[in-house]
């Protein structure tokens, strides 16, 4: 067994070297082939790139095999697992350290890159070679770091008897999916970036042909980032044992920043798709997004900011920073040299138009990203200037980003209702009648119910504006289809199918409202107290009554677990037993707490053990977190909405539209002038 693992790891090493050489070849040949317009050369580069994925799958397989067979002669295995680790966690251990996570990123990028490359070379054959070149360069960077700086398959001369073990905080179901999604999300930003850069390099950015592909991969990347963020919040909520889900920690921020920039991009790319405008702006946004994604990887990898996420800590952060600077410099250079090809086609007709609203939205997203960046790096700045160490934490971000996010919600309510091009003041006012009056009514309703916090009033009113705008349009559309003989359900689905990008977006907006309501409710109406109890004691919080039954100790090779048992009642109703637990890992001197959560759409009842004392008394933190359920429920809605918006529909009808475009060009002049107020 041992020998075969040795052998496997060596072959895995060879596979990485092969992947590196092939990628280097592809990155040169893609550009050469693109410039010479030599199909064969491009095809050769493409097949080279395709072959990286199987090679990396193989070397990843050998690393996982080394984990499963406890081959501690592999340094990375010795550092990130031990004999007592459950075997299933080999997958988590694979990316839990620096070197392995780089291999994971490289692997994930090669697979996703292959899928996108296949599509790109079919859909935009002239841009694809350059996009391939950029993608290969990105891959080359990761593979060279793996080979020369952090090799996960590196051998130790003397194999230790047992490994150091996996970070205990990672032993959680969420760890199987949150880090892979987060890392894939960050690296996948490279794909729309490559598409954009490829179009610029090919000199075809002015033709807008990259827009569809840029949007597609931009949204895929956005979706993965979003899932990563939500899963991360869920993980923090269920395992970090403090009852919260978002702490504005530097690593959280570094994952949020590219998400913000990508959100701006997936919106503004629609303006180019529909109106031929914002060509430069979209390039700027995708460059910013990729820079932010690189910054995220830098901060995650031994960046200068202290964080609880120091799983992948190393000194190579600075290499990432240098490459980020280089990428940014090169992109700006390319952008400037092709500046002329990016003049807008359409014209902005009015300040009150969907185009203008999109621009406002973009700027707000970038502003939030900037504030987040500023707050994250400020401690370094203050240290450098006058050696005072300062902390910029949650209160700052809540206070500054909170209002900016509410402005975004306001735009989310109004902007989708705005037509492209322009709208007269009269129609604009008429358009806003329902949303504004609903907001007003809701505010009044909240006031009469005794809610006084101004931020709650404002945010809930804005959420209702957004919802009423969406439902107003849906009801309007389905009703007119209903009148033509469809039943309501059919009418509604026909309506959704008629404009998937738009109505998919609406579904995502509903998810955002769900998320927002969860955040507002749990921020402003949470209740928290610490209680000291001994077995048999009964306490209450709100309508919950809970009895501390007792505690059991379990000793495992790697940890000591104390599991408390509670009997809980909601009102008079018995809602069962709850088992909050606390594990102590002596080797790591880390204790991890897992709260017991009784969840419902209305509120979570959350029990966390803080301390078990010698005399049998124990300290628990009890929380009621209202409506957190909605935040997790928003995830599937959001995924569904995004996929719906990307789903290809009405292919045949689109062709008809093309025909009718030509047929109607002249008659439409009437329509256009008819729209003038």
């Amino acid at each position, binding site marked *: 067994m041992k020998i075969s693992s040795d052998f496997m790891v060596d072959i895995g090493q060879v596979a990485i070297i092969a992947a590196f050489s092939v990628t280097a070849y592809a990155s040169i040949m893609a550009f050469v082939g693109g410039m010479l317009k030599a199909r064969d050369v491009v095809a050769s580069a493409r097949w080279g790139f395709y072959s990286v994925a199987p090679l990396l799958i193989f070397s990843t397989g050998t690393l996982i095999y080394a984990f499963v067979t406890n081959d501690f002669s592999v340094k990375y295995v010795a550092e990130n697992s031990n004999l007592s680790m459950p075997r299933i966690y080999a997958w988590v251990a694979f990316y839990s350290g620096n070197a392995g996570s780089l291999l994971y990123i490289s692997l994930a990028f090669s697979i996703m890159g292959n899928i996108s490359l296949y599509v790109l070379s079919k859909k935009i054959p002239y841009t694809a070679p350059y996009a391939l070149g950029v993608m290969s360069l990105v891959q080359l960077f990761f593979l060279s770091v793996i080979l020369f700086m952090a090799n996960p398959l590196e051998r130790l001369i003397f194999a230790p008897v047992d490994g150091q073990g996996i970070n205990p905080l990672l032993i959680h179901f969420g760890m199987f999916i949150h880090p892979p999604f987060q890392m894939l999300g960050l690296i996948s930003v490279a794909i729309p970036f490559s598409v954009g850069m490829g179009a610029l390099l090919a000199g075809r950015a002015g033709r807008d042909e990259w827009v569809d592909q840029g949007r597609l991969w931009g949204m895929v990347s956005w979706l993965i980032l979003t899932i990563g963020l939500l899963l991360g919040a869920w993980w923090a909520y269920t395992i970090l044992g403090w009852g919260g889900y978002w702490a504005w920690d530097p690593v959280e921020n570094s994952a949020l920043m590219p998400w913000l920039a990508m959100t701006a991009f997936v919106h503004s790319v629609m303006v180019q798709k529909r*109106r031929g405008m914002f060509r430069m702006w979209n390039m700027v946004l995708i460059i910013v997004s990729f820079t932010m994604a690189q910054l995220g990887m830098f901060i995650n990898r031994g960046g200068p900011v202290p964080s609880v996420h120091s799983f992948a800590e190393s000194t190579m952060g600075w290499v990432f920073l240098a490459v980020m600077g280089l990428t940014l410099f090169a992109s700006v250079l390319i952008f400037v040299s092709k500046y002329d090809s990016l003049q807008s086609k359409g014209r902005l007709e009015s300040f009150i138009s969907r185009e203008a609203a999109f621009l406002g939205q973009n700027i707000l997203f970038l502003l939030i990203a900037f504030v987040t960046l500023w707050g994250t790096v400020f401690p370094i700045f203050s240290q450098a200037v006058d050696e005072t160490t300062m902390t910029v934490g949650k209160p700052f971000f809540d206070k500054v980003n909170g209002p900016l996010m509410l402005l975004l919600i306001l735009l989310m309510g109004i902007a989708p209702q705005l037509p492209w091009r322009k709208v007269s003041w009269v129609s604009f006012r008429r358009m806003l009648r329902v949303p504004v009056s609903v907001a007003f009514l809701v505010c009044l309703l909240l006031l009469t119910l005794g809610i006084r916090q101004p931020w709650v009033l404002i945010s809930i009113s804005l959420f209702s504006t957004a919802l009423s705008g969406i439902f107003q349009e849906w009801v309007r559309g389905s009703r007119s289809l209903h009148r033509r003989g469809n039943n309501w359900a059919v009418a509604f689905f026909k309506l959704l199918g008629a404009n998937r990008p738009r109505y998919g977006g609406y579904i995502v907006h509903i998810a955002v409202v769900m998320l927002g309501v969860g955040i507002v409710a749990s921020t402003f109406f949470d209740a928290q107290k610490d209680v000291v109890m001994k077995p048999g004691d009964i306490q209450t919080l709100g309508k919950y009554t809970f009895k501390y039954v007792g505690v059991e100790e379990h000793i495992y090779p790697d940890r000591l677990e104390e599991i408390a048992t509670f009997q809980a009642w909601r009102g008079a109703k018995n809602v069962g037993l709850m088992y909050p637990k606390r594990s102590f890992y002596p080797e790591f001197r880390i204790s991890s707490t897992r709260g017991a959560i009784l969840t419902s759409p209305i509120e979570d009842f959350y029990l966390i053990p803080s301390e078990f004392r010698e005399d049998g008394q124990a300290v628990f933190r009890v929380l009621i977190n*209202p409506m957190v359920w909605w935040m997790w429920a928003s995830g599937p809605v959001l995924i569904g909405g995004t996929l719906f918006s990307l789903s290809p529909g009405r292919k045949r009808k689109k062709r008809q539209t093309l025909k009718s475009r030509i047929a109607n060009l002249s008659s439409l002049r009437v*329509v256009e002038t008819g729209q003038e107020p």
Partner: protein
Amino acid sequence: MRVSALYQSNFFSSGLQLFASFVVSTLIAILIFACNSIAMSEISKEEQRANSINKILMCPVCPGESIDQSQNDLAINMKEIVKQHIAGGKTDDQILDYFVQKYGVVVLMEPPREGLGILVWTVPLAAFGVAVISVLSSLYLMRRRGKGEAEATELSEGPTGNEKAFLATVVEDAYEDENIQ
């Protein structure tokens, strides 16, 4: 005419208004229900104060985490000290000062609004100002540039490439509306 009709006909019938309001108020009702179910008053004023102070003090040995969040022994001790100080009748500011003197300003989760710390607050404000100005001015420029082009194209016969493109988007809109209506 279809496009213009879309914006001029009166679809804001009372039924729709009612529906939209109904959906929204259901949501609000759930929220209110949730909020009402919590007896915030059950938690003593002292404990509420301690909780909010704990949230703005950082645990010095576990960077980035507030003492409210942290499971560290030092954080637990600090929480105990906060409780004692509150019981001793100290004000929030006095308690914060006590910790600042002991550990430095680093212990505050948000920088003080004085000295260098003022920058952390003013820079976002300035950025907001710059953002507003740049959006407005770029919109203004985009509109002016567009106007010049439009005048030039009006003189020529038939739709130009530019016009075709945006007419096409209008057609697409109209076509979609036709599907719906």
